[in-house]
């Protein structure tokens, strides 16, 4: 149940890609900038590569609802291969958008979206991550993309607050913090409508 000021986001990824971490990070940062937040994963079989879903609710008042999200405003897809097996746009609200991690253009992706006609954004998060961190962690790039596309948080405030969260999250490997911050900035510039 969404009130008018609430933004609901659904993440689709595969176990190990960091959808849960991106979702919880978004909740944490949105909480820091004064929003009421929920970030929660839905677990299926616990194994690397299995499809997983995670959810965010972000609003100006505390949300008492603790069910999954069935009619999201935004959908983020971390793994393009999920488009073949999961109906990722199911329930996506009019006026919302889907963001897909892919090197392909929107024209190539849209036919895979089962008749979806709403807004579509693409970002090559894998390329960004491999270029900057040398490994494929698409989650932080897509986190910046969804913040940019949804406008749920002011981008500069988001970037400012997330650094503190990174310092906590990556306490044992601080060398990746600068790279992740660079990914966020580049992703917010490179995400494009298609």
């Amino acid at each position, binding site marked *: 149940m969404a009130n008018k000021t609430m933004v609901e986001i659904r993440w689709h990824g595969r176990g190990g890609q960091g959808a849960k971490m991106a979702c919880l990070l978004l909740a944490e940062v949105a909480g820091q900038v004064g929003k*009421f937040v929920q970030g929660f994963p839905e677990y299926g079989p616990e194994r690397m590569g299995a499809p997983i879903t995670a959810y965010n609710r972000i609003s100006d008042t505390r949300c008492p609802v603790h*069910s999954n999200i069935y009619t999201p405003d935004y959908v983020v897809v971390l793994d393009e291969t999920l488009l073949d097996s999961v109906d990722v746009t199911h329930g996506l609200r009019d006026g919302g958008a889907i963001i897909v991690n892919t090197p392909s253009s929107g024209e190539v992706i849209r036919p895979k979206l089962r008749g979806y006609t709403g807004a579509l954004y693409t970002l090559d998060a894998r390329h960004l991550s491999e270029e900057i961190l040398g490994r494929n962690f698409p989650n932080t790039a897509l986190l910046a993309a969804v913040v940019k596309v949804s406008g749920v948080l002011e981008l500069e405030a988001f970037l400012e607050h997330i650094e503190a969260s990174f310092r906590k999250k990556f306490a044992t490997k601080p060398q990746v913090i600068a790279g992740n911050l660079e990914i966020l900035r580049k992703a917010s510039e490179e995400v494009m409508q298609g």
Partner: protein
Amino acid sequence: MKTALSGNEAVAYAMKQINPDVMGAFPITPSTEIPEYFAQYVADGVVTTEFVTTESEHSSMSVCIAASAAGARSVCATSSCGLALMHEMLYVAASSRLPIVLACVNRALSGPININNDHSDSMGSRDAGWIQIYAENNQEAYDNFIMSFLIGETPQVRLPVMACMDGFITSHAVENIELLDTEVVQGFVGTYEPEHYLLKKENPLAVGPYDLSAFYMEHKVMQAEAIRASKARILQVAENLAAISGRHYGLIECHQMEDAELALVLIGSSAGTAKASVDELRQMGQKVGLVKVRVFRPFPAEELAEALYHTKAVAVLDKAESFSGCGGPLFAETRSALYDLPQRPQLINLVYGLGGRDFTTESARSVFERLAQIAETGETGPRYAHMGQRTRGSAT
């Protein structure tokens, strides 16, 4: 301090603030993060707790029992089959009057094996003699855990407390939370100073000796009196917490019940979801409300009777199947609580949410629709049913 934490992290943080003497630890999903976070606090030296890793939950509870009998403030966390494996020792803890505090992160029991939320695990322990408090969200999980020490340790109670939250739904969801300052928490829970304990040299005693029929029943009656006495103590501790936090808690929480004709009775995170439905239906002019049961042991029988006597139709929602063949545990006790009223509402039972089956605002609305029909026609239909069942033979 205002921040955002998952339920598990909030409870681990409360443990850190309390700095108990002993933790008996054995991991099980979805409670595993609690000993994980706490082990980090131990490794960082920010707590002085003796962190005892064990080979099973039977042993982690045994560690707590031994430590508590020796006079130490003891904590534990578990879920599902872990709580089931502790079952024997839960009775020993309660009957030895040891105020251990256990974080129970509710999860379905096997089989079939399932890691998701329902209340089968703690409902299976409902007769073990523990106080049971259930949280709707991470804030309540944190507050209940802190209050548990003062409730259990007080001399007129001296009972262990199970502070429950919904697995994954609450334990793994990051939400806003207001944390108390550590000095405030420490001042609130104080130092645990039991009158009697194993290692007290002025008054050595035996704990857990054989009890013949000459006194066994007297001991059980004392336990029964203690759990009755805990009701007043729970309310008193809640008042003390309100004074430092501004957050108010009772044995039950009534939402829009003043003039409600149709009502739900339920436990845990689903109560939050149902509140949204109640508010929505209220805006449409319907006289609906809900009662959230926060404390299941001791059972708030008088409070439920008082809250429900003026309603026309009530649905009790059970997130556990007790295989009685005639309703879940919350239904059985709620119906019993209403029996002595001169005029009772119509009562039905829906078992829902087993093994993580989602409960939505639509689910709650559909129950109110059925209650409206019952109130109008006086026909209850089947009193005991299961919510959202697939048609037999359907694979989708």
